């Protein structure tokens, strides 16, 4: 056990399938340029709903990247997951040979907040519209939250620890931490992350009950956290998978370390109790910094949760100040998710991908559609800001009350 505890959890691959890019390169280009992919929802059957704007993944043809026999038995959220996992594994140069020689050395962890809603709605329609005999054999494996982890494991031959955190937004960070812990316990690599597909008609109807949901119909005005025009959040689909790998395993096979998952903590302060989330988030940040052995002043950039609800935005700004002190007013804060929307569990995983890329490029991406802030924060708006970044803090809060903080370190950070 003691030797395993010395292991560090590195990120060696990133795969993104997001509204603003269906490859890691296109995602980063759009993110650092501050382009917004929010737009009117075009999905069939959604035209009449009061939710008008979302982050849809449009530039993605599943059949071009996933075998048809996997496509027929899976929902869109799993299509994104399989594609993002492929991209991440390619990026990490982790291939079939690695899993064939040691299948138990690679596992899969996903977070899921919306499940296979489109697939499920189709089968519900068959059941109630035509009869139980019309429910197909894949309903049992496509709708449930575990579908993506299971399918990635099977498709890639990974027999390592396989897990699913079914969660609100913060679960995306919990999944990455779960992966990092599995690596520290001895598994060489975990493909981890989250993709979501909550834009089927019935899934959207379910989300209408969230008071925090934005129903503003203009894409550039629908999601503007930290401003006096904050009116809630915009949902999104897609997401990201990353390869979390033991740094010694990565070095042994000559893989490039992109960054480290250095610390994590999670707390709970109650569904929609945004004022209370201030203390919850602060507690999570303190414990995550402690887990990482990182002083508050070392944080070079914060990727904010940025819910877009005034009370929640205020709580987050105060939580940052509570933990980082005077440094909290100087540290750059950004929320690139205003250009993609909040893809539930996938949102903080995309932020993690952006944070690793930001550290690599020495560039903090801006917060699209946000031009000023009413909070005491150094919010990066307009254009990307060059900066030497060694430590990034990613924050996430969930609509059901979870708060989570993840500390990432740049690959070049000393081992100390």
């Amino acid at each position, binding site marked *: 056990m003691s030797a395993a505890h010395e292991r560090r959890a590195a990120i060696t691959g990133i795969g993104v399938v997001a509204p603003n890019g269906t490859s890691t390169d296109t995602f980063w280009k759009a993110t650092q340029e501050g382009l917004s992919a929010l737009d009117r929802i075009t999905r069939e059957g959604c035209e009449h709903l009061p939710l008008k704007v979302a982050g849809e993944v449009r530039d993605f043809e599943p059949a071009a990247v996933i075998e*048809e026999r996997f496509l027929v038995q899976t929902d869109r959220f799993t299509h994104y997951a399989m594609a993002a996992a492929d991209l991440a594994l390619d990026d990490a140069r982790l291939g079939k040979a690695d899993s064939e020689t040691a299948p138990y050395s690679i596992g899969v962890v996903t977070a899921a907040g919306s499940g296979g809603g489109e697939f499920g709605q189709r089968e519900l329609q068959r059941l109630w519209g035509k009869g139980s005999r019309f429910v197909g054999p894949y309903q049992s494996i496509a709708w449930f939250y575990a579908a993506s982890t299971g399918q990635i494991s099977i498709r890639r031959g990974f027999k390592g620890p396989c897990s699913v955190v079914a969660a609100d937004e913060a679960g995306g960070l919990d999944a990455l931490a779960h992966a990092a812990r599995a690596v520290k316990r001895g598994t060489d690599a975990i493909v981890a992350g989250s993709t979501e597909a909550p834009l089927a008609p019935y899934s959207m109807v379910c989300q209408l009950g969230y008071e925090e949901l934005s129903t503003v119909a203009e894409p550039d005005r629908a999601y503007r956290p930290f401003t006096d025009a904050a009116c809630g959040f915009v949902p999104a689909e897609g997401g990201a998978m990353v390869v979390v790998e033991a740094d010694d395993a990565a070095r042994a096979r000559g893989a490039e370390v992109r960054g480290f998952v250095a610390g994590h903590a999670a707390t709970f302060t109650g569904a929609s109790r945004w004022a209370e989330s201030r203390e919850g988030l602060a507690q999570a940040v303190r414990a995550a910094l402690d887990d990482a052995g990182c002083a508050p002043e070392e944080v070079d950039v914060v990727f904010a949760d940025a819910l877009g609800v005034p009370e929640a935005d205020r709580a987050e700004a105060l939580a940052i100040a509570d933990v980082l002190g005077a440094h909290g007013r100087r540290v750059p804060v950004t929320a690139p998710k205003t250009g993609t929307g909040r893809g539930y569990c996938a949102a903080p995983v995309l932020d993690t991908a952006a944070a690793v890329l930001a550290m690599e490029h020495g560039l903090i991406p801006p917060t699209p559609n946000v031009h000023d802030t009413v909070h005491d924060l150094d919010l990066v708006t307009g254009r990307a800001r060059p900066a030497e970044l060694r430590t990034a803090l990613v924050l996430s809060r969930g609509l059901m009350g979870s708060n989570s903080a993840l500390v990432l370190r740049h690959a070049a950070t000393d081992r100390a």
Partner: protein
Amino acid sequence: MSPITVEELAGLMKQAAGVSVAPQDLQQQYDSGFDALGIDSLGLLGIVGELENRHGTSMPPDAERCKTPRQFLDLVNSTLMAGA
């Protein structure tokens, strides 16, 4: 009632299991295992379910246990003919 043809089976394989095999190729692989063609247990259940719904009749439990297209078509067609 007309029997299920190789063409119809090829169509069902694509629809229910996502496996594309041209009918003429399927004809040549008549005795190959479904597993070699990429059809697993769920895929075959899907094909059987779709046939049952199309023809409004139950297939024998052995249908989903058939190993090859020939076995499958023989069994399914004899069932359909018997019911016709």
